[in-house]
């Protein structure tokens, strides 16, 4: 694909990031959480609420654009939109914000995700958990899964992990290295839910099986909390309070043989182990003019350890099938060639459905991470697989 005339490369930046406490029970409304994270992001950028003229949200969020605009008393809203599905949203939200800014529909866009993911609706029990009576229909295709006991995303990822082990010889310990590395980063991050709880590889192996071959420690956390970002033009970002972090490039993508529905139909793809990230990587690196060798640090969406492992392959950090040995090599730890999920990620910091990954990417490139990668200039940030998703490369501005 020829890049040029319409390129968004380095034309927008993330001027502010905000978050709330991450907990098991916030005792607050999701609107209250969204408002706090948004105010923190706006203040972080050195802006006022009335500077915000656009809002983008996740399709799973119960807080709508007008709810948040009312809460923040915004009077200049000219653009809103939403992205998804679910954990795929964050990169898509940033992509929409860029589109709105570069097309003149907004100047400063707030993106947020807010959820009571533990005390309220628990995604791990599946999207149809509250439904009674017959399940499925209307293009959901849930009738082919839920009546058979396949209700949770974790079961699908478990089946993919089983298949990866069969095809490539991936070992439980390989997944364990991802869990342990994320935990080490969380142990340095005071806002991480697992800040005070260490985990060794033996602890990982002793963790109870949930859906074989995935153990409890392979699963992300369930979290009450919110994160927000302020996206604006590179020029405006350069004028804000903090060192500018530019969006080098963003890309959304599907996979060859895309399937409908939420998660279960993914198993019907010609090759279920081939995820959208294979295609996104090509588009993203082309748009960025960069390759895997140029990435200093990565925040990889981690609903499960196996999700991270396949992305090592898809984003070109190792060959196909080599995700296990790569995870075990030490490359993903501090001082390695690709430190990952430096806030602890979904696995050990908190599950804000991929938004905290962007926040951490920004903090890394400002030099403000609790696990700072020395001299980091570029950060890959990915959003939730496996249906159709997105990713971005952030870079330190000058």
């Amino acid at each position, binding site marked *: 694909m020829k890049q040029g005339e319409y390129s968004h490369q380095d034309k927008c930046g993330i001027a502010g990031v905000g978050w709330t406490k991450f907990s098991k029970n916030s005792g607050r409304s999701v609107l209250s959480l969204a408002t706090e994270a948004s105010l923190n992001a706006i203040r972080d950028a050195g802006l006022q609420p009335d500077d915000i003229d656009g809002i983008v949200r996740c399709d799973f969020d119960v807080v709508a654009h007008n709810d948040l605009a009312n809460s923040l008393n915004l009077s200049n809203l000219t653009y809103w939109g939403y992205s998804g599905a679910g954990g795929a949203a964050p990169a898509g939200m940033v992509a929409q914000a860029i589109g709105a800014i570069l097309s003149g529909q907004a100047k400063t866009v707030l993106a947020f995700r807010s959820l009571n993911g533990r005390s309220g609706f628990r995604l*791990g*029990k*599946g999207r*149809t*958990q509250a*439904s*009674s*009576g*017959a*399940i*499925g*229909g*209307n*293009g959901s*295709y849930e*009738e*082919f*899964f*839920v*009546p*058979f*006991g*396949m*209700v*949770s995303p974790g*079961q699908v990822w*478990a*089946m*993919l992990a*089983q*298949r990866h082990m*069969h095809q490539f010889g991936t070992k439980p310990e390989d997944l364990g290295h991802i869990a342990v590395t994320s935990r080490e980063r969380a142990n340095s991050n005071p806002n991480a839910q697992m800040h005070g709880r260490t985990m060794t590889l033996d602890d990982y192996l002793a963790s*109870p*099986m*949930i*859906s*074989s*071959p*995935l153990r409890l420690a392979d699963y992300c956390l369930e979290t009450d909390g919110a994160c927000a970002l302020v996206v604006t033009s590179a020029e405006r970002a350069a004028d804000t309070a903090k060192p500018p972090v530019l969006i080098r490039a963003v890309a959304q993508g599907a996979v060859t043989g895309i*399937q*409908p*529905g939420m998660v*279960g*139909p993914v*198993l*019907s793809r*010609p090759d279920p182990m081939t995820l959208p990230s294979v295609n996104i990587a090509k588009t993203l690196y082309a748009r960025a003019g960069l390759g895997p060798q140029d990435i200093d640090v990565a925040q990889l969406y981690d609903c499960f350890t196996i999700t991270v492992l396949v992305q090592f392959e898809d984003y070109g950090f190792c060959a196909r099938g080599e995700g296990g040995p790569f995870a075990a090599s030490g490359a993903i730890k501090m001082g390695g060639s690709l430190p990952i999920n430096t806030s602890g990620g979904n696995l050990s910091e908190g599950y804000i459905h991929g938004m905290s990954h962007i926040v951490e990417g920004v903090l890394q490139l400002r030099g403000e991470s609790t696990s700072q990668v020395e001299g980091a200039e570029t950060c890959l940030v990915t959003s939730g697989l496996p249906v159709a998703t997105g990713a971005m490369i952030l870079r330190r501005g000058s």
Partner: protein
Amino acid sequence: MSYAERPPPVTTDYDTAGFWAAASEKKLAVRTCSDCGQSLHMPKAYCHSCGGWETEWKVVPPTATLYTWTTTERELRAGFKPPYTIVCVEVDEAPGVRMVGYLPGRPHLKVGMAMHARFEPTADGTLLPQWYPTP
């Protein structure tokens, strides 16, 4: 008994009803393009391969090969008492078509093993194809 709490499938959807109609006669049917023979699973009305709109429910032998599986050790939804196993099989005579099935407990399984469907009623009497290892 917990079995009564299992959610039955919607069997009246425009695109998928034929699967359940066939299952009610203990037959396994795959929606297939009448023009080019492309399997259209998840079932849908339009053939992405040849552009045709004529489809049929092709009855295929209820035999398959195990593609992958997982044994669930936690209760995720009422009606499915752990431990239980979900298998994902590839239907032998509809290449690329994969379906999932429920097996109680922790059966000994191996990728590539032969599987066959038995049609078993769920809580409301709807017959579901459930996949078992073929001895």
